[in-house]
């Protein structure tokens, strides 16, 4: 686990800044924070210093940070006058995301990022607008996540436009509950981005009762289904996400069949182990299930979709809890900064291929045992 956010001490700063880290010739244990946005005439405009210890400088200086060691050249950080430093982008990582909002129009039982009511749109919008031009053009993938990103409205389109013009080679992997696309004009708006855009949409069940219950929202199933069909009209790439949890596991095979019949256009289906944090903790009794209880249903579902020709991935599941035939479908999906291993993993021959467990999870399966 890596902490992307930390709080140290700050001097000479009022308000907030976003900039890219660059090694400094003058200081040994520190970076210069550059951002030409603050001065278009000077590309190399140094706007602050980020260092291990306090420096004697007129410039804003942030120091005494617990996550200083992981900072690297090319990373983009946010700092403010409270001494907060958030790493927004790590150049060496494959798991960078733009965070849009904590707000949501669903309230999923197992949400790992519990929706908040505070209006945080402007705050994150500002950070993302500053961040996009500072990211490396070689960046392979950028995730976009929330909450529900499309609650941002037209400014979400603006962000996608920025990404398209500034990072034309980068794949955008956007997590949404898809309800917004029940309004066809929103699906249509995605068309201009379709070359580099994958929409990852969770579908929990093949029927409205179970799905609406999971997302705690009436009509959600119909909206998402309609949304997916609207997106298909514009050939938008879709990854469906199916979470492996007790209330819906009973019909997981039926759901797979339902996908082949009603959503054959999706590019891939991801079966996802639960990240046991956030709202999931409060709902543990309803949600928790050991992998061995659904091993056979999962296997049948994976093979059904695979035979049908839809690509299948298994996310967030340690290799050792999967049936051997399913291990090829497993992906190292847990973001590097959240990924953990147990002590016993040290003796495991599969560790280098295994995506580990969520460092954020408050409960882990008992079934982990080295291969």
């Amino acid at each position, binding site marked *: 686990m890596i902490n992307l956010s930390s709080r140290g001490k700050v001097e000479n700063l009022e308000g907030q800044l976003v900039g890219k880290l660059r090694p400094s010739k003058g200081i040994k244990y520190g970076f210069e924070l550059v951002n030409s946005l603050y001065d278009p005439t000077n590309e190399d405009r140094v706007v602050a210093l980020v260092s291990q210890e306090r420096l004697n400088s007129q410039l804003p200086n942030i120091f005494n940070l617990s996550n200083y060691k992981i900072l690297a050249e090319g990373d983009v950080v946010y700092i403010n006058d409270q001494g907060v430093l958030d790493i927004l982008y790590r150049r060496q990582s494959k798991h960078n995301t733009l965070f849009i909002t904590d*707000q*949501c*129009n*669903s*309230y999923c*039982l197992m949400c790992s990022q519990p*929706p908040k*009511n505070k209006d945080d749109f402007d705050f994150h919008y500002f950070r993302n607008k500053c961040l996009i031009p500072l990211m490396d053009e070689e960046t392979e993938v950028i995730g976009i996540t929330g909450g*529900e990103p*499309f*609650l941002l409205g037209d400014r979400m389109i603006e962000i996608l436009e920025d990404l398209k013009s500034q990072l034309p080679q980068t794949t955008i992997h956007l997590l949404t509950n898809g*309800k*917004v696309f*029940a309004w066809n004009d929103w699906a249509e708006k995605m068309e201009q981005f379709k070359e580099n855009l994958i929409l990852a949409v969770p579908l929990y069940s*093949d*029927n*409205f*009762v*179970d799905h*609406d*219950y999971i997302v*705690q*929202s*009436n*009509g959600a199933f*119909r*909206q998402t*289904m*309609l949304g997916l*069909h609207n997106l298909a009209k514009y050939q938008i790439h879709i990854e469906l996400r199916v979470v492996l949890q007790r*209330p819906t596991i009973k*019909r997981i095979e*039926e759901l797979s069949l*339902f996908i*082949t*019949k*009603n959503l*054959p256009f999706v590019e891939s289906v991801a079966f996802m182990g639960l990240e046991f944090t956030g709202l999931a903790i*409060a*709902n543990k009794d309803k949600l928790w299930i050991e992998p061995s209880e659904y091993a056979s249903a999962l296997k*049948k579902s994976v*093979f*059904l979709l695979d*035979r*049908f*020709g839809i690509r299948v991935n298994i996310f967030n599941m340690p290799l050792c809890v999967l049936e051997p035939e399913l291990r090829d479908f497993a992906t190292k999906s847990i973001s590097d900064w959240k990924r953990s291993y147990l002590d016993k993993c040290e003796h495991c021959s599969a560790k280098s291929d295994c995506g580990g467990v969520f460092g954020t999870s408050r409960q882990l399966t008992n079934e982990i045992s080295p291969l």
Partner: protein
Amino acid sequence: MEVVKRQKFKPKEHYNSPGYKLLPFKYLHIDSTNELIVGASGDYVIAPIGSVEAIVKRRPISNEKLMRDLHAKHIIIDEYESGGLDVIANRIRTKKDHLLQLSSLHIFVLTLRCNHTCHYCQVSRVTQDKQSFDLKKTDLDHAIELMLKSPSKFITMEFQGGEPLLAFDLLKYAVETTLSLNTDKRINFVICTNGTIYNEEIIKFCLKYDILISTSLDGPEFLHDSNRKLRKGSSYHDVIAGIQYFRNALGKDRISALMTASSLSLKYPQEIINAYLENGFHNIFLRPISPYGFALKSPKKNYYETQQFLEFYEKAFEYILQINLKGTFFREDFASVILKKILTPFQSNYVDLQSPAGAINSVLVYNYDGYVYASDESRMLAEQNDYSFRLGHVSDGYKKLLTSDEALSVFKNSLNEALNGCSDCAVSDFCGADPVFHHAIQGDAYGHRPTSGFCEKNMSIIKYLIRKLEESTSVRNIFYEWISAK
């Protein structure tokens, strides 16, 4: 879109609506205790007899699994939401998508001449008379022009006979002319040959234009030779040698075989399949004889009841399943056509089991006589002086041909959604319509389903396949492999 406020979690019941509305569905008894209920989307539920009555009377459905199944298969819908209708509309649109690809199969009967005298053959002649039994070049030119006017972007140009390779010069001319005139279509070429005529020139030509070879193999030697007569020698030896020759030269997957079941064949289901396996095939199309005129000129050899064919089919099919269960991929193609309709949201492009019927909608036949026919069977009827499905002459032009009385009579009777018997048949989605068959057998293109062999055969095989599907996961898996294999 509303942002949600922090809330108490609500129980599942809160999201349920116990009341429901019915969507269009049809049903039949699939066995002595169960009903097959099929929704407008083509998805089905199997439930105990009495379930239909219960939902029609809107009784609460206490069985939670059944309730969810009925929703997921679009048979019922909750009271408040109508958004689900859009999804069903898309399903129906997807099923009929092939209509946008009007007439994609174009059959060219280059000659009636043949070196075989098969007793079930409806059309061929052993003769040297090119004048009266070969397609004239001017007619061929017209036919190609018609084909290229088809709205379909993907076209199959299939050469039949007689034996089309006896008219190889004409065939060459047809392929090359087509390619020189084509501007915007992807064209596949297929030659349907008895497999006994081949030489280096033919091979070179096939390689050059990536042509597929379709030949006939009826089973083991004694059976094949009894069905398919050469004037001298064994057709079996020639065709096996031919298959080998074509495979070596063109690649294994460039040659396929078709079988026709004569009365004699019905006794040898396993032997036929073994012959296919031994000769390196991974699929077979278990096909009954066409019950048209010529085929019936020797009724002893060629007449049998549909029921007899069905018994043969099931025996052969069980044997095929055993082979697959032991780990060898071997597909039955007719079942695959139906299974594709059952297991996927798409249509099969097999033209003899579609609604609207494949005749004209998916196929056009340009006969050696210079006339355009609605289907392969239509031109066979013409050999018995029945010109009911002769749309007109190749020089008549697209509009005239497709609005002829003959074409209209095909169209009128080609939607099983609107035919008595079919319109409320639970399996109509997996079946098709065949006005040409019903005209030929029942004297009425509209047809009478209770006495129709077409209906009896399809109904029986469809129900059988659904029972098989439900029987075991391993069989279901085999079926998925069949429909996903190229």
